[in-house]
């Protein structure tokens, strides 16, 4: 597996773009996601109304894979219901774990399919799923602990 299948144009464009990397107005959920093995962390912000994710953004630091994955995720979930966002998250986990390989099934992941080959890079799987796991936890009601 060549590195060219990982550091694709889609990945570098998302990594170098700040389109989704910013705070949003009046978030209803803010949750930090940490990758303890590398110390990377992102903070995901969601604004939800009547079960629909109206807006989303993220801030933080991390590798190109975690940053691009979070950015692609935000493109996908904006305007979707929470249930649809969770379905996409599970589909993404399935792809990264190499459990879902059928291309027609993966179609809904759109640009996120560019991260498919990370399933062959065990050391980087955690980077790719950081944003998605944070999303899943946020939708399930997890919030940042109160600052003391």
């Amino acid at each position, binding site marked *: 597996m*060549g*590195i060219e299948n*990982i*550091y694709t*144009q889609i990945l*570098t*464009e998302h*990594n*170098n773009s700040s389109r989704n990397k910013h705070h949003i107005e009046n978030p209803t959920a803010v949750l930090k996601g940490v990758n303890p*093995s*590398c*110390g*990377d962390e992102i903070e995901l912000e969601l604004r939800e109304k009547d079960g629909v994710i109206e807006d989303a953004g993220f801030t933080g*630091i*991390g*590798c*190109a*894979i975690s*940053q691009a994955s979070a950015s692609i995720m935000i493109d996908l979930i904006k305007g979707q219901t929470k249930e649809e966002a969770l379905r996409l998250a599970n589909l993404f986990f399935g792809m990264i774990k190499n459990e879902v390989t059928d291309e027609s099934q993966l179609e809904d992941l759109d640009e996120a399919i560019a991260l498919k080959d990370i399933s062959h*890079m065990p*050391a*980087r799987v955690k*980077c790719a799923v950081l944003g998605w796991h944070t999303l899943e936890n946020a939708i399930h009601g997890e919030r940042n602990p109160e600052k003391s």
Partner: protein
Amino acid sequence: MNPYLNDFPILKEEHNGKRLVYLDNAATTQKPLSVIRAVDEYYRSSNANPHRGLYELSIRATQMYEDSRAAVREFIHAEKDCEVLFTRNASESLNLVAYSYGLNFMKEGDEIALPVSEHHSNVLPWQMVARAKGAKLVFLYPDKNGRLPQAELDKIGPKTKLVAVAHVSNVLGTVYPVEEIVRRAHKAGAVVVLDCAQSIPHYPVDVKKLDVDFAAFSGHKMLAPMGVGVLYGKEELLNQMPPFLTGGEMIESVSEQDATFAPLPQKFEAGTQNVGGAVGLAAAIDYLKQIGYDTIIKTEEELLSYALDGMAKIPHVTVYGDTRAGEQRCGVISFNVDGVHPHDVSSILDSDGVAIRAGHHCAQPLMQYLGVNATCRASLYFYNTKEDIDIFLASLKKVRGWLGLGD
């Protein structure tokens, strides 16, 4: 051609169709055939539980284990065999000192001084002691070249009861002035715990000359197998300290309610020990002695200088600590590429067969002090070659391109 390359089977093999350029030696070193064979031979012909059986095989295993201890004693210039304790690794050695010495000989208000660059294994045990005893951690901060200024060393004062210091920083490669630190510590009435895990593979460690009270290292960073480490301690101190772990092999006699303990070194070696590992460590010491530290230092200094010169010519690369090779600088290079996360650098280098480390290197307080989240780290050993460095530099040059960034 590096004459030592042939001694290391893993370095001669192709990995994914590429020659392995192994530059993660500060994490662990590769093993020479002589070490692999010594361990193999031990398990083939001499394996038995040491210190227990009364039959010939057990006596031989015991003899090999104790011969290994003597080899370590001679190598680090300790006075007596009983001052050399086998552990699993440097982390366990440092925890032994913290639990057995720290918890029993330190009190509220005492200070523990340590450079901010210490590995977590030489920070967390002291945090534990400080919390339990109400002692205070006092950090010494290096300058931009990685050196400890006199004003920082002045923090070792009358309240200091223990100084924990690495001989060589695993991130910056700085060789710390251990003799001066020991002088100051002993004047203050403090003991010195030396973490020489990063130095002993590359520099001679003479515990007698350095006059340190404790010294800890891991076998696997000096060509030996994983799972065997060493704690050196001055006999007088070790005798005053209670056992760290208790159980088999470390007792004198046991009744229902009480026990008395074996003399040194068995007092600190509970349970069946890693004899195969100790035998491997002795073989590694033999191998290092054959090459000689003079050759190791000279080879590594040339490679370090070559690598640092090459890196200075690549735009957007920042090296942390001293950017020149020299006597007080070991072959550990921490660096970053502008705009590229260390994990991406590492993955891209990996695609060219180059193994480096990326992350916080178990030194998060230092990362915070340097104001970075993570760094890349290339670390050398005597079996590396200029060709290794050339492949590393060529791959490093391409990194920003892969991320869609310009020169």
